[in-house]
């Protein structure tokens, strides 16, 4: 059971992800430099971390999506491997077309860095099985381009297929405009691919893993615990720390 954390020039949440999977959860984890010519078959879960890959040149995630390594990540995803894209990692998945939609600048044009309320819309994914549908959790966001856009037709498809996994909400779980910090269509904070093994989200679960960093700052653990559950069920999970 091994995590791979892809690192681009400009990634800056790679260490946080490594800390979460290795030090907190106790599972073997390795950085994968984008320029490395290595095989990905020894990895069980790949994480595309947040940051500013290639300085957000052209569009966030656009240059990273062209990296030769990402073609192997596409192959990994195509054979059913779990791929988690967080923030800029989500951008990369959008630019690769592994997830639908695109990101625009936040509607207030500001970089937003704060804790937000998130409602779980689908708890039947490998990334959210430890959560409950309708559950309200708190996660930090930190982005300037998180204004998720999708045209109305594709939006219908995503809704029908329950592929909208997370939405920004108020404390009671209401999907209201005041809670839509970046202006995303239908308050969308995270979406999944049709096969259910590629998930992208703007909030940072890896920054919400320990009570040490603040009260109610442990909601991110559920995403990692959910992924590990997949491997527990397959009976291939090495003994990590309790999740």
């Amino acid at each position, binding site marked *: 059971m091994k995590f791979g954390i892809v690192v681009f020039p400009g990634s800056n949440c790679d260490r946080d992800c490594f800390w979460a999977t290795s030090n907190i959860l106790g599972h073997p984890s390795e950085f994968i430099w984008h320029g490395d010519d290595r095989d990905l078959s020894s990895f069980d879960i790949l994480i595309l971390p947040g940051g500013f890959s290639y300085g957000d040149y*052209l569009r966030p995630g656009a240059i990273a999506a062209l990296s030769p390594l990402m073609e192997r990540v596409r192959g990994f995803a195509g054979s059913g491997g779990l791929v988690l894209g967080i923030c800029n990692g989500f951008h990369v998945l*959008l630019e690769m077309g592994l997830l639908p939609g695109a990101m625009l*600048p936040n509607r207030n044009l500001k970089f937003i860095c704060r804790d937000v309320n998130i409602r779980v819309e689908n708890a039947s994914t490998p990334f959210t099985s430890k959560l409950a549908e309708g559950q309200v959790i708190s996660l930090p966001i930190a982005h300037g381009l998180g204004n998720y856009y*999708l*045209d109305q037709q594709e939006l219908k498809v995503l809704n029908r297929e329950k592929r909208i996994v997370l939405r920004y909400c108020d404390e009671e779980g209401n999907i209201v405009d005041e809670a839509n910090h970046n202006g995303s269509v239908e308050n969308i904070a995270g979406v999944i691919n049709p096969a259910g093994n590629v998930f992208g989200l703007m909030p940072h679960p890896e920054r919400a893993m320990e009570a040490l960093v603040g009260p109610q700052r442990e909601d991110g653990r559920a995403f990692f615990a959910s992924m590990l559950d997949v491997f527990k069920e397959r009976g291939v999970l090495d003994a990590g720390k309790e999740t």
Partner: protein
Amino acid sequence: MKGRAEVRVMLKDTVSDPQGETLQRSLVSKGYDVSRVRAGKFLQLELTGYSREDIVARLEEICSDILSNPVIEDYEYDLEEVLE
């Protein structure tokens, strides 16, 4: 043939442009009668190919696959021959 292309990438009309809207409001606040602003990207490329058609084929590929994101953006370009 060597060509010089000028590529313009703009958000689709149906996509809101927070940058353009903010610029528009700022211009109005300065007293200018500006009703709409759309912000985009302008790129210059120099590229070679066997013929104009060959360059156009590559340019289309570059513009649609890389320089623009077809979910939110459209592109257009002018191409002129560079005489050496």
